[in-house]
């Protein structure tokens, strides 16, 4: 399928976009023992690419160890983080990596059913993905007795309905089951009690796409890229004030400064790393590295130059969270509203610094007391933008009530 995003892959790195022949990952995997695959993934040091960075091998091991007749592999393709568009590219350009990653995961943990939870807005790619699955079936890479072995595996695609929170793995599972998309209590974790109460692996599109490469080229090879704690490469979705926005495959450990040079950004004032739920990095921190040891991210990079009003940026983020909170737990449902109100107060100049500090404290409570990652990360931008851009935001006209 000819895609408009083709030109958006600005840089193909040596890992994810390295040469790969369709089917070779499955072929290689089916010749291996399950434990060997687990070992290889562990050796590679692969961590979840959705942003949280949980070791993939640990997730698979726990699911493999769980006792159940039925297990599921879920591909989280609910790419909803503002500023992220790398999964879209993978699904459209490299579906073989995604689907073969799922098949290998299924083989490893003992599952015969994969489900792709596809973002509702990506409905346009549904038919081409389904065609692709049919082709895989024709080639015996999917379905019963794959490549002549005893291993069966099928993949269904389920469309989401547009809720940001459904990117959270337990909310995603609730949604798959036909319920309101609300995160579950953890523990129990999906590796034990997931979809339909069965052990379930939920992996990001990019995580799964890394798997066939690891299997065909070894964990050792994968580990050579990136840093000690962040192995391999990462897809970054770069947007904002730069000449060359698009998807970049870069090794982990790249600094913001290096990235900005690559994308030809000028007069950059701030970089939002990790989307709306990430942190906002000011100029004096541009030497920081992208990686789990410093700036962990699902890959969203938003660049703001000197013309941008950071308060408006913040307000936009907070409006997003007020809208997208699932409304289940108190800190997130009401907390985000209070943070937005605080932002609006600053905008109008009706705030007091005392109250803004109270709200920052509230933000810290939300980070530790919310039920899921949404509420735990939504105050990040509030806290980091207000801390890092104090002078700009509280400049003349926005001195606040207690200075008047």
């Amino acid at each position, binding site marked *: 399928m000819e895609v408009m995003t083709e030109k958006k892959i600005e840089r193909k790195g040596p890992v994810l976009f390295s040469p790969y022949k369709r089917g070779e990952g499955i072929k290689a995997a089916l010749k291996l023992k399950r434990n060997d695959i687990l070992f290889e993934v562990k050796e590679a040091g692969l961590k979840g690419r959705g942003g949280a960075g949980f070791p993939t091998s640990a997730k698979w091991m726990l699911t493999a160890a769980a006792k159940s007749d039925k297990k599921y592999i879920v591909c989280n393709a609910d790419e909803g983080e503002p500023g992220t568009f790398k999964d879209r590219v993978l699904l459209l350009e490299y579906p073989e990596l995604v689907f073969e990653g799922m098949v290998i995961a299924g083989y490893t943990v003992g599952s015969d059913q994969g489900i792709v939870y596809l973002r509702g807005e990506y409905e346009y790619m549904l038919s081409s993905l389904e065609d692709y699955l049919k082709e895989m079936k024709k080639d015996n890479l999917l379905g019963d007795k794959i490549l002549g072995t005893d291993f069966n595996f099928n993949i269904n695609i389920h469309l989401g309905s547009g809720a940001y929170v459904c990117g959270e793995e337990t909310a995603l599972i609730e949604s798959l089951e036909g319920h309101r998309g609300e995160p579950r209590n953890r*523990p129990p974790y999906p590796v034990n*009690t997931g979809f339909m109460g069965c052990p379930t692996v939920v992996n990001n599109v990019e995580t799964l796409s890394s798997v066939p490469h690891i299997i065909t080229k070894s964990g050792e090879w994968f580990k050579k890229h990136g840093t000690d704690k962040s192995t391999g490469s990462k897809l970054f979705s770069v947007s904002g004030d730069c000449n060359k926005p698009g998807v970049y495959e870069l090794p982990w450990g790249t600094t913001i400064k290096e990235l900005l040079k690559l994308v030809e950004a000028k007069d950059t004032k701030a970089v939002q790393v990790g989307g709306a739920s990430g942190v906002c990095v000011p100029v004096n921190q541009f030497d920081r590295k992208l990686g789990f040891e410093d700036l962990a991210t699902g890959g969203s990079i938003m660049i703001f130059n000197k013309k941008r009003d950071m308060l408006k940026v913040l307000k936009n983020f907070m409006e997003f969270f007020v*809208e997208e909170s699932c409304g289940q*737990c108190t*800190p997130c449902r*009401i907390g985000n509203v209070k943070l937005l109100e605080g932002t609006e107060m600053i905008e109008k100049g009706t705030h007091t610094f005392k109250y803004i500090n109270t709200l920052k404290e509230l933000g810290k409570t939300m980070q*530790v007391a919310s039920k899921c990652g949404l509420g735990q990360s939504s105050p990040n931008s509030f806290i980091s933008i207000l801390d890092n851009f104090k002078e700009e935001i509280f400049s003349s006209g926005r001195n606040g009530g207690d200075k008047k």
Partner: protein
Amino acid sequence: MKKDELRTPVSQRPHVIESTHVEKGIGENVSVFINDKKITVPFGTSILDACRENQIHVPTLCHHPDLCIAGTCRICVVEVEGMRTLQTSCSFPITAPIKIHTSTPMVRKARRHIVDLLLSEHYGECYTCVRNNNCELQSLAKEYGVDEYMFGHVTESRYKVDKSSYSVVRDMDKCILCKRCVRTCIDLQEVGVLEAIDRGYETHISTFMEKPLADVICINCGQCINRCPTGALKANDPSDEIWEAIDDPTKHVVMQTAPSPRAAIGEMFGQEPGKSFTGEMNTALRRIGFDKVFDTNFTADLTIMEEGTELIKRLYSALVKKDKSVALPQFTSCSPGWVKYLEHFYPDYIPNLSSAKSPQQMFGALIKTFYAQEEGIDPKDIVCVALMPCAAKKFECNRPEMNSSGFKDVDYGLTTREMGKMIMEAGILLPEMPQSHFDNPFGDASGAGLIFGATGGVMEAALRTVLELVTGEKVENFFDRANITPVRGFEGIKYAEVPVTKVGPVPEILKNLIPNWDWLKDATLKVAVVHGTANAKKVMEDIKAGGKFSECHFIEFMACPGGCLGGGGQPIPTTEEIRKKRAQAIYSEDESLPVRKSHENEHVVSLYDKFLTDGPCGEISHKLLHTHYIKRGKFIV
């Protein structure tokens, strides 16, 4: 997992703890440190339970002992060493030797923030709230020293109060989205009227298509009211109208009181659950100004006569006359919540419902006919108030067919909570009242009528009477002290087989219905007792599938968990522990009564002599004491 079990989202279901990745397993003990104190608990115990068993207070809001875990309010957060975020103690199962801290600066601040956030959205004032002084949010505000609204306070109403239902009033401005009502409705009762809709800040609890409560499949059981931590849900309170009637000298206001309120009303006055205040309550009601105080247990006895006779008639037609059209098993019809549940969910089984009215409605019909005649009072001047443990009774007395006296048989259904409030309003301290008896002619009831309040009570009362009428022997010969224990207890579904070992002569009162008992010789009466509509659903599905319950002869159904004593009109809180104590109060009062079988109640016997002259299920009783039902179905236009 069966589809049925999937109805409640996993997030709101009890945890299944897999022990594959931990060395310990279910059944073993785990040692943990709570606030540096070493405590040993069984594997899988929640942090909350571990704390409570060790007298460590952890506040809760969305947690309720009757319901599954939600973990949404976040007020019960604690610190677990080694975890980045705080953990909700209600949902966190202890599976490893962890270190827990329940009162660190971070925990205290988080809890205070959460209380303040809830208060910022909680519209309405405590003064004007039915739950003033009995509100969990109010208590938390006090506990956490809230002296100002840290995050402001909402000044405008966001939602319209839904007063459409006769039973339940919903004021979503006071809702804190703990979803206890949702879990009560879908999980405890399996009705599923309420669910959260919309997202984020717009989230609110609503009904199908946001219809008013009166227009959806709500069965009016009021269990949601009993579990609401705030005043967002309350019963439709008629006490202003009742005061008006009391203060009107032209009105003759009579009160009939059900058995369960007297076993619970003390709780409204700071008394421990499990003590009956029958005599004290009678005095209080008279002092308030009710002209007569009657005992609904009297018509409970009458219900046994009517419903029991109906059962015998059905059995005779089915077994002897081989009439295939007779619907068996016969279902009890005393619980209006259950009746409406059946009308909505299993309308095809309406013929199985006993046509006998509930005790409340029998009473109303008799008050405005027999009693009015005897006392020479114009029935239009009589106001009949029913003190009930029930929210659905408010709906029942407003059913359009409930006017066989020519007037509205029962004018108002009043809950235990509302009665307690009226007693307080009158300046009466209930526990200090002298005791007094009910008024006659409806004042003397048997213990059989009294135990209607507990699950299994109707069945026990019916069995006491049926066994004696059939065998001609004392029921004490079959069951010690006439306590039919197989139908007692709090198990959700009880099944019992009662063999009829011998038959006696047909008693006078039934002679025109059947010639002899020979057809019942060596028969086994199969009965079942069910409480809570979730359990009712299981039994109904079994009957539909032709299972063992379809072979029963008689099944008692009560909509509320525990029967009437756990009703939606009872004092808050109501938990399993409290329900058990109330049941004890009822059963011990039954044992203390001189008459414990409905057919031995001399006032019932004389009523059949004087008024219902053609006997149980005769023409007069059919007109006054029996009713019909409506096929409602699940879809309402």
